[in-house]
């Protein structure tokens, strides 16, 4: 009864699916083509006939080389990587601890704290960046990676806590009780029994947090002033446009290379990422 005729399948499935794929991926394709296209081909106006409009006949590495030589791009990559890893690690530790406490321990105000952490999850960075810039400066963190390593956890901890709290709740209590009967402390049972069982959840939260830190922009824009402390998104925005001139070849090379690490991490852990993503909204 649910079997469809062939033309129907084309109309209702293949055609829209193909349209979605083109819509989703064309910008990335265009980013890649632009990054390897010589300037002479790049700056051909829209009306001009073009020998290879959607392709390039003379691929070149000039933009990539220019990016590496004339800008601090490698430094930005290194900064972004270090900041993403450290802020993810801080958030995971805090999230594991807080998630466990909220999921398993009975104490007064646990419900209130859970709700409060959930609300901070929904506070956007754009609401607080002005006073936060002053706080960061007063703590003498301005223009250092620690400014971002400590502020990124503000949007990562709530997410990690909620995701892991949900995960811990699915682990049977008997597991811990057995360990406690065998003489383990509460803390020991948590670290040696519950955390290892929760590794898939921890991985999901970590991958998701990593991509979020790699993506963050406004804090990095406001807190980082000098070229050698910037992250990739901020460096690309502020250093590759000189005056009013856009260096499109270098810009797209920077966008492409800046996307590679996060795309790689994602591609290795797609399933974990998807679990994190769908878990992040379940609450």
């Amino acid at each position: 009864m649910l079997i469809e005729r062939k033309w129907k399948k084309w109309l209702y499935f293949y055609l829209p699916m193909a349209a979605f794929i083109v819509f989703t991926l064309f910008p990335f394709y265009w980013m890649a083509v632009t990054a390897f296209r010589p300037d002479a081909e790049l700056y051909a106006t829209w009306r001009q006939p073009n020998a290879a409009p959607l392709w390039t006949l003379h691929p070149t590495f000039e933009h990539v080389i220019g990016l590496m030589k004339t800008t601090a791009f490698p430094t930005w990559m290194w900064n972004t990587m270090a900041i993403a890893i450290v802020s993810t690690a801080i958030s995971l530790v805090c999230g594991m601890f807080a998630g466990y406490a909220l999921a398993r321990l009975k104490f007064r105000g646990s419900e209130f704290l859970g709700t409060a952490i959930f609300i901070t999850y929904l506070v956007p960075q754009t609401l607080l960046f002005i006073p936060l810039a002053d706080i960061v400066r007063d703590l003498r963190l301005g223009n250092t990676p620690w400014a971002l390593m400590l502020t990124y956890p503000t949007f990562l901890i709530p997410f990690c806590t909620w995701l892991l709290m949900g995960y811990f709740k699915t682990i049977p209590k008997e597991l811990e009780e057995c360990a406690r009967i065998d003489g383990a402390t509460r803390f020991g049972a948590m670290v040696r029994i519950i955390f290892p069982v929760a590794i898939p959840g921890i991985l999901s939260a970590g991958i998701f947090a990593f991509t979020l830190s790699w993506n963050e922009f406004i804090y990095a824009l406001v807190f980082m002033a000098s070229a050698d402390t910037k992250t990739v998104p901020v460096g690309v925005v502020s250093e590759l446009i000189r005056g009013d001139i856009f260096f499109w070849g270098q810009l797209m090379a920077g966008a492409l290379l800046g996307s590679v690490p996060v795309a790689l991490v994602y591609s290795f852990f797609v399933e974990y990422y998807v679990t994190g993503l769908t878990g992040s909204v379940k609450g």
Partner: protein
Amino acid sequence: MGGGRAAQDLHLSARSSTEGARVSRLTRLLESEKALAAALLAPGVAILVVFIAYPFVMALWYSLTSIRVGDAGHFVGLDNFAKAVDDTIFQQAFKNTVFYTFWATIFKLSLGMWLALLLNRHFRFKRVVRASMLLPFIIPTVLSAFAWRWMFDPTFSVMNWMLYHGGMITDRLPFLSSGDWAMWCAVLVNTWRGMPFFAITLLAGLQTISPDLHEAAALDGAGAWHRFWHVTWPLLLPVTLVVVVFSVIQTFSDFQLIYVLTGGGPANSTHLIATYAYQIGVASGLLGEGAALSLFMFPVLFAVVWVQLRYLKRMEAA
């Protein structure tokens, strides 16, 4: 020499025994649920208090003063808010934010739902397709927004090129050079970026719906549209609501996409609340006014969060 060594040993053992006592006292303390909970929650809560609660209070205070870079300012009451309400650029920015959030959410929801329904079928390369569909959501927005800006370039736009050589247009389209066009372009790029989030989350919801329900409805003679409307949609409603709430918050407070795509231009016609607050608060250094501008986001966000919390409570009660 030997005596010194013995003294050192003695000293070491004395220290380790006091340490042992301290450790066991700590262990005993952590056996209490309350103490352990406090210890486990402390680091996370400390970060959230210092970098969210405290700046929030500071934002409220700033918004009531005339503080600017290099000048502590003084209390001015609600002047900053009154000034914002009278500011025509801010009025435009507020309208833009509502417009942007409304249309982008509509498109993300409808296209995301469609994509989720397509991805829920069995086909070859399903895993690869699903994984690549999420790319716009993974890749840093600033970087992909640059790719879009390049595609919308007034002189070198690949889209104008394709449309012109495909015989669809005779003159180029003013993607980012006309205010109206630029706003719709921003909606398009936001839809492109956020649609995968809707699709993948709704897909996860779809996968929990038993195929038996669809077969039963089909046996009763319900067509595809009816099955969607009377079986899928109601069952998916809880997930949909949560996804919409998250998306509305993200879109309403968006900054980076507009910052890269148009910078608020042409002639301030695409500013959002956040980009205008940045321009006033950071670029012009008027911290008090900037803080007041960002706080205009708060009532809307608060309302959305309130709906979400009420909904969560109802779910728990059910």
